[in-house]
């Protein structure tokens, strides 16, 4: 019943990315750390993009079957 693929938490990624940009813009970072942060930031940005890249809103219908158990079906409007 729970969705197949693992979901990307857009909100969390966005917050992390903001944190990283702030850290990177802070004082006195070593090059190594800067690049590390840069890499991390790009990955997060990609993650967000991926999270937003769904082709279409998915629609399901929650209904009761004959035994009054709830089941989830694909739904089209």
């Amino acid at each position, binding site marked *: 019943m729970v969705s197949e693929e693992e979901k990307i938490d857009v909100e969390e990624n966005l917050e992390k990315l903001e944190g990283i940009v702030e850290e990177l813009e802070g004082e006195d970072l070593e090059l190594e750390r800067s690049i590390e942060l840069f*890499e991390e930031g790009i990955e997060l940005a990609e993650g967000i993009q991926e999270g937003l*890249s769904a082709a279409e809103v998915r629609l399901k219908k929650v209904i009761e079957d004959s035994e009054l158990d709830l089941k989830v079906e694909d739904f089209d409007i």
Partner: protein
Amino acid sequence: MGNTGSNPLGSDPGPGEEEVYSVSQLNKEARYLLEKQFGSIWVEGEVSNLHVSSAGHSYFTLKEEDSEIDAVMFAGDASGLDLELEDGKSVIARGTLTVYERRGRYQLRVREAREVGEGKLQKRFQELKKKLKQEGLFDEEVKQKLPAFPEAIGIITSPTGAAIRDIVSTMAERYKSVTGYVFPVKVQGEEAGEQIAEALKKANELKSELGLDVLIVSRGGGSLEDLWPFNEEVVARAIFASELPVVSGVGHEVDFTISDFVADVRVPTPTAAGKRVVPESSEITNKVDTLVKRLGNRVKAEIREREVELDRARSSYGFRYPLRKLEDMIQDYDELSEKLLDRGSEALGDRGDRLENLIERLSLANPTRLLRKGYSVTYGESGRVISDPKNVRTDESLKTVLHKGIIRSVVTETEVEDGE
């Protein structure tokens, strides 16, 4: 004759001394009396024999089982009417009782009319609203915030109405990374209220199983009676009990229902509900673009800074051993850049183009390139990059990383530049 029997003329002495009305006079007086006696009144009845003249005046009868009265509504009054007069429709009409003198018929001159039942529903609405308000169901403090980035949205509405289409298409225009779980219910008629309340309960039970973040209760426009289920107490209680935040979008802009007052967020229409529950993807993308740009600018600035430092410190030390760590790091960086470039605009759309651009510019400042050009990086004993001679002491061992290896050296003397 001595007869006490009636004289055929005796009890009805004829006009004699008494006043004789003309027909028009009588009608006039009757009209005066009726109008004066009744004034403006409300009459309930069923419309029948409706005839609308070419001038737009409506002639009809108001009737109940075994009684009826003629009625007329003139075009000017009819144009301001909310409801459509129809044969068989029960109405409450306000007007004056009068006489149509030309025919001597008395009739109701109707000024306004309402559908029967509407008044009662209005009253029930006001009473319930007052009661629930007093109980605190509408309090701002108990209202929940909507999640900024919902993943799953429960939509409680008719699966076949216009509302579900409006909600989903509006959502999809803004944001697609979301699943809509439709809980099909009736949205008008007897059972609707119970079904809506039950669906609210069910959706809350399935909250974690489906990962629901927010619920919408909605239907399109209709008469007060059509919207009535959303004014039922059972629905109001279920919305109030919902752990998931609830958005209510019922009818048109002008319609307010009890469920609107109890819900965490009231929106005017189903379309507005779809808009309200999801963020705008393009806004997020723009935000991410800005952040990535800041990220890139910062790294470029860092590298540029070092370029200047290295330029100053450049010397002709030899080299032998590669420093794995930095090289690995540089390689990772290269790979990442290439990876991003590979995907390019195809996967990332417009943003991809911009990203590609950014990465290209970044790679111009790639540390590998700098090292290749003969720049180097010097580390102190603590492992820190040395960018200022003040940070080393005499006899400290240094490690200098070049393009193809490292140099180990010992500090014999430092010189600090002026004007730093």
